[in-house]
């Protein structure tokens, strides 16, 4: 099961079929951060047949792995999610060294966005068949990024879909904007590129502290609420000029030290 997802027929179809690819890029460089986090999952299903987010990964600076990835190649047949192959990746780094996957081919750029980032979540789903094979897509990608630029957090969000179909009919996704409802018929609603990212500023449209991107959000009769290719990212600025470590200061571990135990008044019942 744990195999990096190969780019299969879905990717090959990208140039020949309807491709929607949106997001941001730019050339500014990012500062060091005091914390960063990237996370992603492939599928989450809320409804009568629930599905925990999976495969799910998280990368956290400074207290976790800088990179985490996972894949799930086969989804057991189910009325809500008939089949899909999924791969997710998360990155977090103090320095802005993370190159986004989608950025290089994204159109519609945000002028203040950096070329590399401090945190990134990325998810790709291929060969999706969902809601009793009613909804299909060849490739569904999501990427969320966060970086610190001149002391301020800048976010990015990107999504890509290839050959979305409903009931066997292609649903074109052309020049989308965030949170675009691309299908809304007979109780099925499909939102492409659901995000809290503000493309005009690189900020967020809510009070959250991280950017998220759901490449597809599908609601359907029977209480189905399916999220496909979710990513998120956040960072905390460390300041414009990171201070070099003081050689006289011992390194502070990132795990806090356990304090001495507080005595609890009471009569012990130990064996004595």
């Amino acid at each position, binding site marked *: *099961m*744990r195999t990096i997802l190969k780019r299969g027929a879905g990717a090959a179809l990208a140039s020949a079929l309807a491709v929607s690819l949106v997001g941001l890029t730019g050339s500014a460089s990012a500062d060091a951060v005091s914390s960063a986090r990237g996370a992603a999952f492939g599928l989450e299903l809320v*409804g009568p*047949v*629930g*599905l925990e987010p*999976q495969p*799910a*990964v*998280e990368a*956290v600076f*400074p*207290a*976790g*792995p800088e990179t*985490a990835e*996972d894949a*799930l190649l086969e*989804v*057991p047949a*189910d*009325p*809500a*999610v008939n089949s899909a192959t999924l791969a997710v990746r*998360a990155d977090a780094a103090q320095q802005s060294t993370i190159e986004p996957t989608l950025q290089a081919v994204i159109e519609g750029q945000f002028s203040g966005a950096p070329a590399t980032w401090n945190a990134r979540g990325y998810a790709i789903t291929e060969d999706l068949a969902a*809601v*009793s*094979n*009613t909804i299909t897509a060849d490739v569904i990608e999501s990427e969320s990024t966060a970086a610190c630029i001149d002391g301020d957090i800048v976010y990015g969000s990107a999504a890509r879909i290839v050959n979305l179909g*409903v*009931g*066997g*009919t292609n649903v074109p996704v052309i020049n989308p904007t965030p949170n675009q409802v691309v299908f809304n018929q*007979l*109780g*099925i609603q499909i939102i492409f590129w659901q995000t809290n990212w503000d493309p005009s500023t690189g900020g967020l449209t809510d009070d959250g502290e991280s950017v998220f991107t759901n490449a597809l959000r599908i609601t359907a*009769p*029977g*209480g*189905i609420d399916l999220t496909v290719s979710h990513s998120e990212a956040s960072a905390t600025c460390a300041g414009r000029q990171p201070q070099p470590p003081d050689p006289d200061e011992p*390194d502070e*571990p*990132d*795990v*806090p*030290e*356990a*304090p*001495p*135990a507080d*005595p*609890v*008044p*009471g*009569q*012990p*019942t*130990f*064996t*004595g």
Partner: protein
Amino acid sequence: MPASFVRRLSSILGAVALTLLLVGGLRLALGAPEPRFAGPGASPSPTTTASPTPSDEGFDWLVGTAAADTVVAYAERDTESEVVGEFPRVNEQGAEQTFLLLVEERGPDGSIPEGLGWVEALLPVRPNGTTGYLRTDDLSIQGTDYRIFVDREEFSLTVFDGDEVVMETEVGIGTGETPTPVGLFYLTSLLQPPTNNTVYGSYAYGLSGFSETLIDWEDGGIIGLHGTNDPTSVGRQVSHGCIRMRNEDIEQLVPMLPLGTPIEIV
């Protein structure tokens, strides 16, 4: 949208709704992701030699304190696997539920790679040495360099802070019929009795280990590390399994040792 397509879609959706009703109780049986990193080393056994988790940085030992109302320990890194134990946020002694984490893989700063999502822990249950896998989301993780080493043959107790010996003293241990168990354990509670004038003296730590002979003891026969109202019992086999210290010794430990401090008994 063509009418024929709408009719076809309506038919499909009807089938979807029916199928969902039929499988309403079914959960998707997606396999849990396998651990990305190698799991912890062998579970501690009575013959295990306690050694700090190798790490150039960070603490020698990691301690998890319950951050959820209930912490569930599983046999594998899978919530569908056998439940080894369920632990409330506060244990029966009124202390924060604490676990000694058995972490072999560390991040560069000595911390647990959070992306793992799971960590193996020594559990405060019978049989001694039982381990299980806990969700890191359910824990607040801290570190310590303290550890305790008890040598029954020598009636000695040594407290280390990393490689430095910070205390070496004499202790009393269990009798031949109620021996002090051997193995790797950790401190799970610290009680201050109402009076010093009991067998427990001024303070008593509870350990994660249990007597292997006293099964029906109140609260299960938890082994203690405690003071005493009889200093002459130190240096002898006198107890029901607990480790006895002089009050002045244990009072030095109280402002020092956190819950979760490992204690190896040989």
